[in-house]
């Protein structure tokens, strides 16, 4: 029960997806595979929500053990506040049906929406924008021409960066950049994705046939 059932499920789900590629949709097998995809969307929804379950469990665990207690409490408050607002008042500005009045959210400005634009958006966007500073210091201190390969990498990078700058067309850097992007870059990336596709094909085969079981927690 612990291992054979999951392997059977993996086999069925995998074969369903493969047949849906090769078989015409209006065949019995095609219809069955199409249903499996509908199920996949629902199960994927649970998988996404599982992440939040994990965060709640760990934050509660840490809060009990006094580790970063204030931080974890703030995290849980924000989590349940946003979740409650979204579920009870609807996830969209005055459109989505809500549990309370069964109709649309009357207020002009939905608090769930407010939290997204004024808390989640600035935090998410700013977190990413720190990277420009890391690149600046890394460009100066970590990116060295240790070898010929690293040298080629840095020289091409400089040419491509120059080519992006609008005034670069004066010195023709944008023509060289375009050539780099559509010839060596295409050739190398094409070989890489071909190799990767082979790797994924053999890995997927072994997963579906149950030869590869590490996703079950490695107790094969």
């Amino acid at each position, binding site marked *: 029960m612990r291992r054979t059932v999951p392997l059977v499920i993996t086999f069925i789900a995998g074969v369903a997806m493969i047949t849906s590629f090769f078989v015409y949709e209006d065949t019995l097998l095609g219809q069955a595979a199409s249903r499996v995809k509908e199920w996949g969307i629902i199960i994927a929804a649970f998988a996404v929500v599982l*992440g939040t379950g994990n965060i709640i469990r760990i934050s509660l665990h840490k809060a009990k053990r006094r580790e970063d207690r204030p931080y974890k409490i703030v995290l849980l408050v924000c989590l349940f506040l946003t979740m409650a607002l979204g579920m009870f008042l609807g996830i969209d500005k005055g459109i989505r049906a809500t549990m309370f009045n069964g109709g649309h959210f009357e207020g002009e400005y939905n608090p769930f929406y407010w939290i997204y634009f004024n808390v989640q958006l600035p935090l998410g966007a700013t977190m990413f924008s720190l990277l420009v500073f890391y690149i600046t210091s*890394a460009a100066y201190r970590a990116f060295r021409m240790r070898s010929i390969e690293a040298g080629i990498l840095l020289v091409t990078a400089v040419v491509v960066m120059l080519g992006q700058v609008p005034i670069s067309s004066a010195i023709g850097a944008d023509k060289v950049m375009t050539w780099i992007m559509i010839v060596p870059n295409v050739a190398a990336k094409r070989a890489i994705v071909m*190799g990767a596709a082979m790797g994924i094909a053999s890995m997927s085969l072994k997963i579906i046939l149950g030869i590869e079981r590490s996703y079950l927690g490695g107790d094969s």
Partner: protein
Amino acid sequence: MRLLSIITIGESYPVAKLVMLALMLIFFGLVLYFTYQAKKGREIYIRPIAGLSAMNEAVGRATEMGRPVLYVPGIADMDDIQTIASIVILSEVAKLAASYDTRIIVPTKTPIVFPVAEETVRNAHADAGRPDAFKKDDVRFLSDDQFAFTAGVTGIMLREKPATNIYMGAFWAESLILAETGFLAGAIQIAGTANVSQLPFFVAACDYTLIGEELYAASAYLSKQPQLLGSLKGSDAAKLLWGGIILLGVLFATWPDMEAKLESAFGFRFADLFIFN
């Protein structure tokens, strides 16, 4: 409603789908053949991979300095093949760390990878004969958000000062923060990912980088598992086959009269075998 019918009379089933089915079966045949050979104990040669031979040294260095090893299995979920390859490498590195009695910290980002990593490290400690040395808290689920996770990992780098950072698996924008923070913390860094957009930073800032497929080759090289060796050799054989296909395609594209002969004989051009819409 038809039961199975791939090929129906009257309706033309795309030839390229049949060619694809054939190529897939040939490819699987190669993989299963080499897996069988590996299972039978036949010696399978894999060329040395620079990044890997450094891994033993790097874990050894961490042991000498009495500092932990940090292993980040990427930020993708178990559905990403890179994560599965990373878990295979994690189990080997964890075995190595357990045998050297060195702590191994494994931060994870996705809900499914967290339990898988936890069990893999626990089993690795058991296989190394040190089940008691396994610390449940060293395998941590930091956050489901890419950047909150990254902030957590850099926090570990600054606070617990690992001597060796290993980044194996699927990485995106956070690869630079990890590589640069690790570089400035003076750790030996070995990276491996098939996400090509992140390879430049790993190549520029890490000591060793496994490029694309070398990540999968590494999991085979390290674990010597017959199935991994089988798929690696299968892929190698397939590369020869696809190299031939490309050369053949160029031949037909360059000599139209050969193409015409093929078309008159079979009714389709060589390229039509690969394109169907």
